[in-house]
């Protein structure tokens, strides 16, 4: 992108700042609109405002006044965090970074006119658009379940209220009752997330309701950090947790929320709590904008620009980028690369080469933390994994406690990187 601009302007610019401005900007300050104030969007908005020093105008569109992180919401379920500690406001981004924070929904994007339409009826023009809307659930993914059933069978897979509901249901379980989780098929946000949740549910139940049972109904053959989780589950929670994989009907499940019943390929189970995490796809606005192919929005690895429109970038869970897992760490990493590329395209800022990283920590029991991570590079085809690491089986308690402490540090860092 930068290269292209230099070619066009080469010779003309000759050191003149005025000529170095891109041609899309007839006059005024270039406008960047960011849709979604989560791990990807808030980070991108903050870096753009910070690094441009006012050379671009940043508008952030996000309906919620407070962003409750999904990351660490499992720790809330395990009794290790309170909900307040997971909520973050946008005040600092507005007051100290000069970002125009608009609490509204983006409902449509006119990519020819470069305008985002909001639910309130307002519209916001852009020179560059960054979408980081996270995920939506696929309709009909779990027969019997839809959004009207999410109070009986919560997903708790988008931050805040749903996690509180799920936890209250766990605390109200009858003695010896059954907690069931319908796990999602790949790809979905936070690959170890469902299994960390199981661990934290088990932590709570072990303390309050030790005869309770946990049933995972899983359409996948295997899952992230499986050996580490299974080792930990056996060690900490005895026989509490059972997983039904596709071999035994894990991919052929339907639910009856009114009766609190699940049907696993013909075997019907009565359950007391049922956490349904349906199959996922890019947040709706990415589809509305016509930027998806199938469920996700394909992007170029070098700058997270859409493969369907170079004026739009898609970050985080919504993007089909290659090898990175859908995580807050990934979204944050992608947002930094994207912010640098967008600044480079709109001003004469230097663009840093695209390098990406991810680490996913999971807590198996209090102080028993594990992690998996990798670094990535941009290729023509995709964001490609370079090399990685994973916690080992049978690590000593001190190592695991260190890993957990590392994750606490990460939480503080990423939320500061998002919200200032």
């Amino acid at each position: 992108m930068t290269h292209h601009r230099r070619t066009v302007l080469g010779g003309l610019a000759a050191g003149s700042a005025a000529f170095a401005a891109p041609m899309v900007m007839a006059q005024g300050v270039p406008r960047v609109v960011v849709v979604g104030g989560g791990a990807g969007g808030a980070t991108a908005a903050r870096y753009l405002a910070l690094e441009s020093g006012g050379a671009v105008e940043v508008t952030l569109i996000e309906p919620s006044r407070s962003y409750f992180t999904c990351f660490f919401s499992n720790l809330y379920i395990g009794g290790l965090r309170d909900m307040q500690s997971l909520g973050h406001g946008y005040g600092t981004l507005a007051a100290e970074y000069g970002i125009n924070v608009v609490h509204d929904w983006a409902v449509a994007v006119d990519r020819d006119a470069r305008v985002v339409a909001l639910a309130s009826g307002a519209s916001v023009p852009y020179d560059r658009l960054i979408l980081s809307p996270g995920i939506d659930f696929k309709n009909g993914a779990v027969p019997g379940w839809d959004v009207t059933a999410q109070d009986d069978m919560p997903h708790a897979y988008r931050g805040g209220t749903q996690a509180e509901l799920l936890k209250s249901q766990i605390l109200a379980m009858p003695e010896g009752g059954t907690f069931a989780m319908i796990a999602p098929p790949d790809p979905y946000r936070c690959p170890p997330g469902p299994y960390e949740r199981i661990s934290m549910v088990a932590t709570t139940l072990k303390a309050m309701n030790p005869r309770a049972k946990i049933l995972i109904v899983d359409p996948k053959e295997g899952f992230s950090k499986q050996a580490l989780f299974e080792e930990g589950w056996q060690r900490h929670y005895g026989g509490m947790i059972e997983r039904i994989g596709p071999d035994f009907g894990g991919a052929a499940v339907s639910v009856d929320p009114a009766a609190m019943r699940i049907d696993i390929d013909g075997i019907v189970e009565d359950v007391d709590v049922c956490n349904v995490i349906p199959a996922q796809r890019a947040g709706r606005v990415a589809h509305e904008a016509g930027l998806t192919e199938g469920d996700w929005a394909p992007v170029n690895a070098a700058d997270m620009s859409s493969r369907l429109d170079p004026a739009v970038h898609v970050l985080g869970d919504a993007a089909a980028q290659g090898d990175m897992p859908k995580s807050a760490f990934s979204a944050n990493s992608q947002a930094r690369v994207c912010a640098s590329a967008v600044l480079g395209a709109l001003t004469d800022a230097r663009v840093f080469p695209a390098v990406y990283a991810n680490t996913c920590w999971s807590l198996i029991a209090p102080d028993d933390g594990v992690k998996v991570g990798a670094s990535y590079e941009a290729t023509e085809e995709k964001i490609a994994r370079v090399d990685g690491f994973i916690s080992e089986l049978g690590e000593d308690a001190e190592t695991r406690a260190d890993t957990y402490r590392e994750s606490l540090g990460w939480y503080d860092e990423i939320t500061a990187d998002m919200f200032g």
Partner: protein
Amino acid sequence: MAENVTPRVRVPATATAGEVVTIKTLISHRMESGERRDEAGRRVPRSIIHRFVARFNGETVIDVAMEPAISTNPFFEFDARVPESGTMTFAWYDDDGSIYEEAREIVVE
């Protein structure tokens, strides 16, 4: 009968004569070893499934004894040759005297 015990079996519905088919079984059971102590330090009494038998048309295919060291929710995968159509039966024997049974038809085409 122990609580929450659900046997599950996966058997192909059809086979060709003499075909070797793969059968998988899973039973949810805590498999309490008898060695574990509860929070109050009392020994939790042993309660395991100690035997699993699969038969085809009455003939034993496998018959295994299980030890307390077996992990929870025991899983078995084994192959069986099916000479003709018939019924595969499965039985799990619990320490408490319960027997959990399942049966599946296999049609030889």
